[in-house]
Structure formats: C-alpha cells, structure tokens
C-alpha cells in the first residue's frame, strides 16, 4: 500500500528519516532532487566519510595494522559503519548485507554494506551533500578526470569541508597531463592532517603546493623546490625523488636556526640524488652522521618518527634538532626536531637498550611504593 510520504508535514518527514538507515536515505536521495534536499530534515549526525578511489591494495594505516584499502566509500559515526561497494553484477545493485565481523581494526564491530552501480566521485559528492558531511576522514583519488575532480572540489571548497587525509594515487603520467590544473583547487581545500601525492607529474610545468597539513608526503617531488620548502608550515615532510641540493638544504637550515622559524616542524626526510660531498650543510660536508642511539618522536606507545646516528644541531632559541645525511646510491637526509613532551632518547646500558624522555623530569618518589619497586626492578645495580 503506497503512502504519499512527501505530503507529510516537515517535522513528521524528519521523524521518518531519523528511523531510516543511511542506505535507505542514499537510495531515497536517488529518487529525486526534492527527496535529496529533504533528507537533512532527519537531523544532522556527525557522519565521517572515507573514499578510496582507484585500485585496491594493501596500505599501512596509522602505523598500526595493514588495512585492505578497497575501492569503496565508508560512512561512519560512533560504532556504526556503512560501506558502499561496487556491485560485481548488475543484479546485485542495492543489495545490502550485515557483516558481523570487521575485516580490519577499522571495523571491529562489523559493518553494513551496500552494492552500488559505481564507486566514483559522483557517489561521494552525493553522500557529502545528502548527509551534510563536514569531515572527510580520508579522500584518495587519482587525477584522471579533471571534470569529476573539479565538481567535487567545488563542494569541498564551497562548504569548507575538513579533509583530514588527502591522497593522490598514481595513474599513468600521460593520463594526467592536466595535473597542473589540480593544484590551485587542492590549495583551496581544507586539508588538515595529511597530504600524500603518489602521482608523477610532467616536468614541463610548475606545481605549487600552498596548503600545509600536519604531514606531507610527496613521492615524485622534483617540483617541490626550495622556495616551497622554506615557506612550508607543516610538521612532518617527506620528499622522495627530490631535486633539492646541498645548497638548498643549507639555505633551509640557515633559516631554521633562526629563532621563531618553522615553529611546527618536527621531522623532515628528503631523498635526492643531488645530495653530494661537494658543499657543506651547516658547515658540515656530507655524509653527516655520528654514532648516537636512536631518538624517536612518540605518541604514547606509537613511534611517529625516529632517527639514528644523527648529529645534534641547535637553534638560536635552544631547540635541539638531530640531522643525518647519508650518501651512496640513495642519498637521503633525516632531520628530527626534539620536544621534551614526546621525544625519547635511547641509550645503551648494561641491561641492553633503554629509553627515556628527553629532559623530562618526573617526581618518582611520589609513585606508590609498589610502583616504585617495579621501577627499581628495571634499574641495574650501578643506578641503584
């Protein structure tokens, strides 16, 4: 028995939509523009979305687990996870399924899935609009269709949607001849945590990255010149296949040494065939290294970045950094800026490798007695 839903008063429509799951709302949004506009009447949840376009492959997520990075859109809030997948057969389209157990750490409680005709930017933008999403947890795309990208960029920029992680997957270089047009749009996006570019660009253009998320990883970074490095405000930067030279890096360190510069920078890693032993970096001729135990930046128990056998360099304001430049077939620079709050320094003791927080005092005698005993168990007789 059909029911003329759209004749319901607005608040009643909202009550019905509140009781529909995202898959029903998504299908409803496909019925007409009017229904798509109405869906928000059901109220706004803090939906987050991840979109992996392109080929499926295994990736490393948050330094924790291997995660199967499928071509899919994932919509989630709290413990509810809804996955939009591409249907293998036309007859499977819109079939939904509840999978009781997640396939990785991201889906510990299981998830719901729906088979869609296509997993593309159109679906992604449809979901962004339909659910009024304000945070994109991860957006992974390639540069094969500027028109599609431009459409989605309009929504992301126009609504100032936060994109925590933005990843450009590699496609054949000859298929992304207009890559230069993407950068101005990317620069207008609100990318906050991570920008990763695996795409190799054509060399005949200049590409400029003016967005500074917490972390930048560029696989083919020949275009990322010294000016871009000097103006960058990111915390962690990794540049592979760079064309930066000793002179460029020296210029960078001359600036870094001055107080107040690069306030966010914690880690820099550059791989460049132009690093050599011809000219100095901070008055040191590469290779720059010194036997020294490992130093790590940690977030709790997770290692964020680490550096071994580095030379200590000091900023005018007293901030300590650790620099290592290795030459050989794969010349590479590592630079870590220490912060007492999260940086640990390993040291070699009689009982093996131990680590401690840099310069971080701790009121040990305020520990309860049993805890003190536990700590003393790990000290060797000399320390005791």
């Amino acid at each position, binding site marked *: 028995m059909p029911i003329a*839903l759209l004749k319901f008063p607005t608040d009643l429509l909202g009550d019905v939509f509140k009781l529909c799951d995202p898959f029903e709302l998504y*299908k*409803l949004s496909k*019925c007409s523009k009017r229904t798509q506009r109405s869906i928000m009447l059901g109220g706004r949840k803090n939906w987050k979305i991840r979109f992996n376009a392109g080929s499926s492959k295994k990736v490393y997520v948050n330094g924790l687990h291997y995660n199967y990075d499928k071509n899919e859109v994932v919509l989630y809030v709290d413990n509810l996870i809804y996955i939009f997948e591409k249907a293998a057969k036309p007859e499977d*389209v819109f079939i939904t399924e509840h999978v009781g157990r997640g396939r990785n750490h991201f889906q510990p409680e299981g998830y719901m899935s729906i088979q869609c005709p296509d997993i593309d930017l159109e679906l992604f933008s449809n979901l962004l609009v339909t659910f009024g999403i304000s945070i994109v947890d991860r957006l992974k795309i390639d540069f094969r269709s500027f028109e599609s990208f431009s459409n989605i960029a309009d929504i992301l920029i126009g609504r100032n949607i936060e994109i925590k992680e933005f990843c450009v997957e590699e496609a054949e270089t000859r298929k992304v001849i207009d890559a230069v047009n993407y950068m101005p749009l990317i620069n207008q996006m609100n990318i906050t945590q991570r920008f990763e570019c695996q795409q190799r660009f054509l060399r005949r253009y200049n590409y400029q990255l003016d967005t500074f998320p917490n972390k930048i990883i560029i696989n083919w970074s020949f275009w990322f010149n010294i000016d871009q490095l000097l103006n960058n405000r990111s915390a962690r930067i990794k540049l592979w296949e760079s064309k930066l030279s000793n002179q460029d890096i020296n210029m960078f360190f001359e600036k870094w040494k001055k107080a107040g510069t690069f306030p966010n920078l914690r880690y820099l890693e550059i791989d460049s065939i132009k690093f050599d032993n011809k000219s100095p970096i901070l008055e040191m001729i590469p290779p720059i290294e010194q036997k020294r135990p490992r130093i790590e930046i940690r977030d709790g128990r997770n290692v964020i970045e680490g550096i071994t056998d580095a030379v200590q360099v000091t900023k005018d304001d007293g901030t300590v950094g650790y620099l290592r430049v290795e030459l050989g077939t794969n010349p590479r620079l590592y630079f870590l800026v220490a912060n007492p709050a999260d940086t640990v320094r390993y040291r070699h003791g009689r009982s093996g490798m131990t680590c401690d927080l840099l310069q971080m005092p701790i009121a040990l005698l305020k520990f309860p007695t049993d805890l003190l005993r536990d700590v003393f168990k790990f000290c060797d007789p000399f320390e005791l």
Partner: protein
Amino acid sequence: MSSTEQGTSSAAPAEPTTAPESAAAPEVPESFYYVHGKDKVVHKVSAGALQHSALIHGMISNLGYTEEQAKANPFPFENIDGDILQMVVDWCNQHKGKPTPPEDTNLPKQKEKLFDLVLAVNYLEIKELLTYCCKQVAMMVKGKSPEEIREIWMIPTDAEDEAAEKEAKKRAGKEAAGETAAAAGDAK
C-alpha cells in the same frame, strides 16, 4: 474503556455506551472525556488514557469539568476520520497508565490507513504511537531499490516536480492577476 455511538452534533452528543471497567478499579473515581472525529461518533475516554496525547492532555488539564460538562462538550477533531480516531482511542485505552513496550503487539495493523493514522497521531501529539507509526513507514522501504521506494512513497520524479512547480506558478500568477483585476474593479 471506550465506547462509541453515532452522534449528531458535538454540542449534543448521544449517551455513549461504556465498556466494563477493568477489575482493578481505582479508588478515586476516574474522570472521563469525550472526543469525536469527522463522523461525529463520540468516544468516551478516561483521562488516564488521554494522557498519551499531549494535545488533549494540555486541553483538559485545567478544565476541571464535571462528568456532565464533559459529556456536553466533546472535543471535536473534525480533521480526523472516525475510524482513525477509533484506532487512536483504542490504542490509548490499551496503554492507559503504562509505557509502550518496545515490541508492541497492540498496534494498529491496517497499512492502508497508515498515512491518515500518522497525521492524526502527529496532530494529537501521541509521541509513542507516533514513533511506532514512523517506524512502520520507514520499514516500508527497507531493502527496496530507489525505483521501488519511489512507488511505495509515491515520490514524484524531478520532471513531475518541475511540472507541478510550473503549474503552481502559473496558478499563482493567474490568481494574482485575478486579484489585481478585482481590485481595479472595486476602485472603479
């Protein structure tokens, strides 16, 4: 608890018959009120049952009617069909003084009446019944394709919406023109 009788007007309702009270009758005599829908059939409902409806509860809470006054002044709900009001009254009686269980088996089952029932329940502000009804409406499209949803919820296509919008604009234009002409006529 409830009873109905064909009434002729809201001002002079016929004496409704009363169903036998439940065995555990309250010590304080229960007050009753009377409601009728479009069909003028008057339903006698206890104040306890009517508490489910925020609208009616708000109306009666300060009235302090005597039995006679209540009988003489049934609440008219001219926008609600008689059979729908009957369903609502039945539900209120069944759930008098107790919350609705999550799986309520005493709920109206007539799917063909669902649209009118939802509107009536929404109007009468019966929260629990409204939630159930909305759930019923939402369940209608569970697992359906967009095309099936369009049919079940009678959703017009974009083209139909555009045509209806054009038509509405045209009608509004004509009405405005008519009003202007009438105003000009009046001025003459």
